[in-house]
Every structure is written in structure tokens, then in C-alpha cells.
């Protein structure tokens, strides 16, 4: 059994995402969120853009080498 397998034995914990839940927020109130989670999340998103670019995942289902 590897270390990774052992970690999984205790189960995966609940995870918090980097995206704020805006489903019940009015558009004209978004600005009021200011430097809270919204600004932070946008900054994280921009950082991810810089780190990873935008990968396009391509699949050649035709004959491959």
C-alpha cells in the first residue's frame, strides 16, 4: 500500500472551492462585495490564467502515430 492509498483510507474531506456562490446575488449588488471573496476569487482566477494559460484539450480520434 502506498502513502497515497493510505491517505484515501480515511476518506476525502469536503472541499471548499475558489469560486464564490453568486447564485442569489443581484448584479447591482456585486460591487458591494468589494474586496471580499469576489475580488479575491477574480485575483486567483487571473493568477491561474497567468500560470497555466488556457489549455485546449484536443483529441485526435483519427489514426495516430
Amino acid at each position: 500500500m502506498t502513502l497515497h492509498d493510505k491517505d484515501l483510507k480515511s476518506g476525502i474531506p469536503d472541499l471548499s472551492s475558489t469560486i464564490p456562490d453568486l447564485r442569489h446575488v443581484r448584479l447591482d449588488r456585486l460591487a458591494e462585495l468589494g474586496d471580499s471573496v469576489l475580488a479575491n476569487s477574480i485575483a486567483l482566477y487571473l493568477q491561474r490564467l497567468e500560470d497555466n494559460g488556457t489549455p485546449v484539450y484536443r483529441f485526435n480520434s483519427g489514426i495516430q502515430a
Partner: protein
Amino acid sequence: MVTNHGLSGEAFTALASGDGGPAAVQHLCDVQYSKHLMLLHAVATEAAGAHPMSPEITASRSGYEILVRVQEASPDTLAWLLQLPHIGAWAHDCLESKARGQSPDFGYMATAAAAAAVRAGVQFELDVPVRDGRVLLPGLGYFHGIAPPDSWVRLRSDGEHLTVGTFTGARCSALVPNEASSEPVPQWQGTYTVRAVAEGQTWTVLLETTDQYLNRFALPMSAAMTAEDVRGWQSRIQSAWEVLVRHHGWAAGSIAAGVSVIVPLTPGSETGSDSATTPAAFGAIATSLPPDPVFLAETLVHEVQHLTLCGLQDMVPLTKRCDEWVYAPWRPDPRPAGALLQGIYAHLGVARFWGTQRHVETEPDAILRAQVMFERWRSMTESATATLLQTDCLTEAGTWFGVMLRQRGQRMASAAVPADARDIARQVALNHWLIWQLRHAAIDATAVADAAGAYQHGEPLPDRALPEARVQKETRKVDSAARSHLLSMRFLEPAEYRRLSDAGLPGLSEADRFLVSGQASMAVQAYRDEICTASEPLPDAWAGLAVAIHLLAQTPLLPAFATRLPFMFDVHTRLVGQGMRSDPLELAAWFA
């Protein structure tokens, strides 16, 4: 108080295991709503702070105000808009443009707002850009022939009728995607739509051929489809949907929940088939038209796996910044760890698809294809996840995910596959891996020189340890297309393969003919002769020789070809360069 979207450990595990189903995909769609709203706000904030004023900035501000009213009147309509992949792709492009110091396309905000207002029946008036002579309403369609190209035109609506510049008379309720029941509207082209139905399950998907923000793939969007082309797509999608609903329900539900747009691509060649997804446009799959419904069904499964993982990674990053490039069994080029993770996830879905499909097919050729595809992709899981987990590119959650992917693959490992299909899959996989090594593994030059010197002087290999190898884009040029094509043709196009086989497999070398037709001993000898008599090193013959050696029942040379192929090839090249005779089998025996 706003909190972040969460994901239960149970849902994370279900997604990793491929058992998330439509509920998990719907959760990801909800998150995409928030993501797109967040990005929309980021673009609006940029526009609000931009100087000097321009028509684009004015349009953006007006558009945002209209969206506020749309949300008040019809929250579902705003949700419809924000879950369009068009919006994600455009907002993403705006932020990228800003990062590059370029001016974002603020004007698109107005076209998006107009589409939502028309759909919601909200009164509005604003100017929108005309692009390529079209007034676009994302997700609905476009007006054409009304305003000069690359100009601006004023839209006015009382909530029931829309006026476009001086063109009047379009009822808002008629401005919908193009379906058989659509009421014709002059100068209006609704976005082509497919409503696929099978056994009571419906999947409605747009065929997007207009929006520039969904035309960002390696192949161009099929922008000029004829009515016959559209009918061809509709028919193929309907047939693929029937395959999915009847036999692959786990995927059908996810596709219906998560895929709202197909971007038809113009293929690069008559026989090639290509598909793609991007995390910037969640909900869209781009693809050329696959050759039959089963392949389209497989493509949809493959791409919805990518989309699902894109959505998950928006929530929980699984990879981190990393410069490691590694082998991916489905690609000819080295891939970053994040792409390897994506590919493993997608191909696990593909393996699952063929694992079922092999029991569905009734024709011998189709059964062989399904069996080989199943074996090809299930067998890569162990090595690919091992490669992934050895990188230093995964976050903690990414490591959990990788381990669960490996376990998912292991659950498929015990399924029985006929020997002929297993052999073909093994040969194709070996050929791919060995060619990749020769193309991309760069061996330390000092180690090569030392080994060549020792071989020349009849001394043993100086260091049994493998020398340092780097992954490079192109270390050696290997032209293996003809053999690779024939190896794959055996299961992808068996009838054509039989025809060529009867004709003596024209276009292949003698050694390749032996290999492809399963005569491994003869192939080994023929490759050896090719290599020994050539005036320069032949990397492709070395790759073929290595495949043939693997296919021999027992040979002491196997370990050398399995683990030291690029090293041996470089030593051989050095010896030949020094005018020495170098027999590949003698060299391998020395390495063994």
C-alpha cells in the same frame, strides 16, 4: 454573507470514479454560473474605469444596466445567458486581452444583454456592434444584411417587438434558435439546433457556427454550413444520442446536463477527425463530424470527461505551476502534467465506453474495433497514472484524484479481452511508446561517448545506471507514419487493411511488412539488415526493431530495448559517425 461553492468529499470521489452523473455535472454548471457572473463583473468593472469614453465602453455600461433589469424580471433568463459557453469564452478573452495590454471587446456585453432582454421580453434600447455584417444575439442567432459591416446599430425593444436600426417588425418571441417549428423572420438566422430524442430522453444542443469567441480551436469553425450539412449533423447527433442513451446511460445524462453547444469544425484532412474542449468555454464541445455515430458517441464521452474535469478544476485546482513534460499514450508530443491528468480522465471514460460497446456491436469488424479500443485505453491507466503521480505537479487534491483514477482503471483490468485484440492493442501501444522515446528522450552526451568508447575497446558498459535523459520537443526525427498507420488500420479500418494486405502492404518496407503481419522473427532480421547496411542511422528502423523484439516470445535482448532504446541508438549513431560497423543486436547484447 457570500461563501464559496463547496464540494463534498463524496461528490469529489464520485467525479474521480466517473460515477458523478448528471447531478455532479449540474453542480458544476451551477458553479459556472457563478464563475461567469464573476468574470462578467470583472469586465464591467474594467469598462467602468476605462477612459476615454468610446462606443464600446458606453455599450458595455448600458448592457450591464440592462442585465440588471433582466435579472429583476427573469432570473432564469440571466441564468440561461450566464451558462452559455459564449459568455465564458468572451469574458475570458477580455481578461486575457487586458493582461496583454490590449483593449477588451467591451461591445460584446451589449450583444449579450440584448440577447437576454429579447428572450426575457424586457424593454431596452442600446447600440450594438455589427460584426462581419451580422448583428449577433448570442445563444439565439443573428440578423444579417441590415447594417454595414463593422458599424454600430441601434436596437430598440418594447418587450414584444425588436427594431434593428431602421429595420422593424421582428417579434421577440420569434427570435429563437432555428428549429423546425421556428417562425420565419426576415433577415434573421436562428442558431442551428439539434433536439435529439431517444427512449424519452432529450438533449437539446446548439450548433454554433457564428460566434467568434467559440472559434478559438486549432481547426476553424465550419462557418458556412449548407442546409444539407446541417441535416447531416442533426442526423449524426440523433444517431449518436441513441447509442448513448441505450448503452451508455452514465454518459448520456452528463452530456445532456453539461453540453449545450457543439462547434462544428472543418477537418484538416478528409479522413482526419478532431475534437477539443477548453476550460474557457464550459458547455461547448468542438468537433469535426466523426465518420459514424459510434465514433461521435465516443467523441462526446471523451469531451464531456474533459469538460467535467475543467469544471472541477475551476473549483478545486488539481495541478500547480510546473514545468515537467511527460509521455502521454495518446499524443505524439510531450505533455505537461495537467494535460496528462486531463487525458487520463478522458481516456478512462473512453475505455468505459468501449468496454460496453464491445458487447453491443454485432459485426466482426466493429467488435474487433471495440475490443482493441477498450484494451488500448484501459491498459494505459496504470503507467499513465504512475507517471502523473511521480511528477511534482499535483496539489494534495490532485494526488487524491490521481490515485482514484488509478483505482478506477484497476477495476477494469480483470475484464477478459480476446487474444487477437489484445495483441493489436499491445503492438499499437508499444509502437507509440518506443517512437516517442526516440523522438523526445535526449541522453547525456558524455554518457553516450563513454559507452561508445567502451564498446569500441571491447570493455563492459561503464555504468549500469541509466544516464540522465531529458524530455525535449524533438530530439530525433522519426518518420514512422506508414507503419503506424497500418498498425492502427487493422482495427480502425479492417476492410481496407485486408485489401492492402492482399496487395502485399504497398508503401511499407520489408521489415515493416513482416512486423505488421505478425512475423516478429523475420521482422527482427529485416530491421537488423536495414540498419546494418544503411549509411546513416535509421531511428524508425530502430523503433520497429524494438517493437519486433518485444513481440518475440523470449529474448535476452528485451531489457535493453525496453529500457535503453534511445541510449543504444545514440551509441550506435556515434559509432556509425566514426565509421565503425554497428550491429544493433550485438550492441543490445552488450547493453543487456
